[in-house]
């Protein structure tokens, strides 16, 4: 095992797959000589050449559209959208085209592509470098949406995503890039897409979360454990589509309480879907309402620091919600 941060895990996964499979290539803004604005492709041009590490114009729709054309021709492109906030110009090529390439050809074409998307807030990114973009993508049949929170998961899931024959949106939380370190094997390994993981065992309630919020939730779980002896079970969804409903339901049936924590705004979100699934499949096991911790229903997110902190969920906000749910 090696210790690495999330960014290094992402880089490692791509480098290994580029070495293994000549059909894998990268395109995006500043991915070449600059090595990506976060340095995810640092050193890649030197190792793989400019042909396989392609600096594109600032034109997101064609980044995804070109990746799609190459994918349905047998390649395995990794398209980088520099910031999640910039994905909207590409949304038609992603949601309208890539997601339906297989379905609309009755299985004749593989859109075997990964769209890597650094996203999320709490980084003083303001309205256009902080957004969570998962809800619309996870809403889309035909896409897979992965949102890892640890280096181990980021590397294993990204290798799986690159090898997947369907389009995978890979959401990397920017704040986890250098903040979150952990152990991960040095060589090849894969983690399955579509499977959640229980990151903390507990019997008093189930907290369902993903991305950066996993780490805040784990901190909150320790706080309430130390102060009140409340033991929260924490589920990291890891994949937002397809959702691992079984893991969520199994846990909620044991604990009888469910709290959902997300950085995205509440309306028509991942949390809405998880709450609906719990209501459908675990209604008679619940002894309290399904609660959510989310930002206010406002655009993400103010640049000014007090307002940003007001907007973002935090360990304290999460532990408060846990206590409230337990006290009901």
């Amino acid at each position, binding site marked *: 095992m090696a210790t690495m941060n999330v960014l290094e895990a992402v880089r490692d996964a791509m480098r290994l797959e580029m070495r293994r499979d000549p059909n894998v290539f990268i395109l995006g803004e500043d991915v070449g000589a600059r090595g990506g604005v976060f340095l995810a492709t640092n050193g890649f041009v030197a190792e793989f050449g400019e042909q396989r590490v392609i600096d594109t*114009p600032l034109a997101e729709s*064609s980044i995804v559209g*070109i990746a799609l*054309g*190459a994918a349905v021709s047998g*390649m395995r492109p990794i398209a980088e959208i520099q910031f999640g906030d910039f994905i909207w110009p590409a949304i038609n090529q992603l949601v309208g085209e890539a997601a339906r390439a*297989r379905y609309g050809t*009755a*299985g*004749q074409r593989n859109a075997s592509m990964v769209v890597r998307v650094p996203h999320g807030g709490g980084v003083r990114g303001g309205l256009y470098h902080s957004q969570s973009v998962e809800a619309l993508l996870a809403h889309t049949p035909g896409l897979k949406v992965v949102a890892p929170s640890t280096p181990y998961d980021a590397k294993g899931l990204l290798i799986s995503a690159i090898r997947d024959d369907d389009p995978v949106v890979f959401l990397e939380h920017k704040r986890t890039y250098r903040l979150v370190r952990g152990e991960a094997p040095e060589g090849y390994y894969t983690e399955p897409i579509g499977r959640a993981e229980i990151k903390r065992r507990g019997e008093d309630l189930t907290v369902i979360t993903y991305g950066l919020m996993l780490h805040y939730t784990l901190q909150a779980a320790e706080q309430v454990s130390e102060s009140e002896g409340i033991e929260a079970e924490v589920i990291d969804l890891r994949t937002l589509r397809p959702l691992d409903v079984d893991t969520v339901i199994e846990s909620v049936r044991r604990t009888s309480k469910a709290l959902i924590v997300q950085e995205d705004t509440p309306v028509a979100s991942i949390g809405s879907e998880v709450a609906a699934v719990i209501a459908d499949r675990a209604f008679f096991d619940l002894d309290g309402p399904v609660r959510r911790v989310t930002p206010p229903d406002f655009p993400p997110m103010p640049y000014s620091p007090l307002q940003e902190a007001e907007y973002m969920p935090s360990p304290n906000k999460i532990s408060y919600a846990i206590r409230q749910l337990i006290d009901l």
Partner: protein
Amino acid sequence: MGKMNSTGRETQIASSAGPAGLPDGLDAAGVVEMYRTMILSRMLDERVWLMNRQGKAAIVASAQGHEAAQVASVRALDPSRDHFLIYYRQFTAMLALGVTPLELLCGFLAKSGEPMSEARQFPLHGSHPRVDLFSFSNVVGTQLPQAVGVALADRLRGDQGRVTIVYFGDGAASQGDCHEAMNFAGIHRLPVLFFCENNGYATSVPLQRQMAVESVAVRAAGYGFPGVSVDGRDMFAVYQATKDAADSIRAEGGPVLVEAKVDRLLPHTTDDDHTLYRSPDDIGQMRGRDPIDVTSRALRERRLMDEDGDKSIRQEARRLVIEATDRAEALPYPDAEAMYRHLYAE
């Protein structure tokens, strides 16, 4: 040109036919074959339009008026190695590529056995199991970046000498995807042939409300590659321009934009009424330069075909259309449950 023969039959060619100043790469038999495809396309087109009025075909976007441009552009390429990204008005191109009338009819009638999407999609959409073509979408212009990606895949694999041709209309030329695709293809000098069928209307909006220039072709200069504009009713001119473009692309000369100026003889689709926005004069004028008539005349003038030859081509096409219609009508719809397949890899 076995692939181009969509009728599977030979028709008599006037015995006096000779090369008659044909462009390089075309011979008398090939030219008559192109005309045969145009006639078949026209008759099939008329048939499905009629079947829409009968309530049998839910939607038709006609290729009438585009036939010469489509058949000539396909003839100028090499379907055994080139990639084709078509769009929804490409009836004739598909016949020229070897898609059968029955397959096309199954698309319009949404019948079982439709090869491109198992009738999930509108007619002409999907991918074809025998022919290297695809068309995913109704959103115009999306195919242009995708075509650039297809060409990029060839480049990355070191697969040289292949052309990716992407068809689009003047309407699609207004999309950002069109700009982005041409820009990227120009930067990397990718083997893409951008083929614009400019019929002067984006549904109801005329060209002068779509662009401040007179042709789409002039825009190529802004992307660093050549653009040519040809009379799309003249199949020899389209063939020559497309052949020159393909030759240049195969010689690693980078992308080329070919614009064929055509008429859309019918409304945008069966759901449109072009008398609301086109004058009777305008409609009459374009009917007077119907590419079927233009081509028929040209072939007879060049003595590549005589009146009897023309007549027998039409008779044969009519027979094929009737036969395909009968077979398509007898086919069932795909089962409702079939819709649940192929969302993800199975």
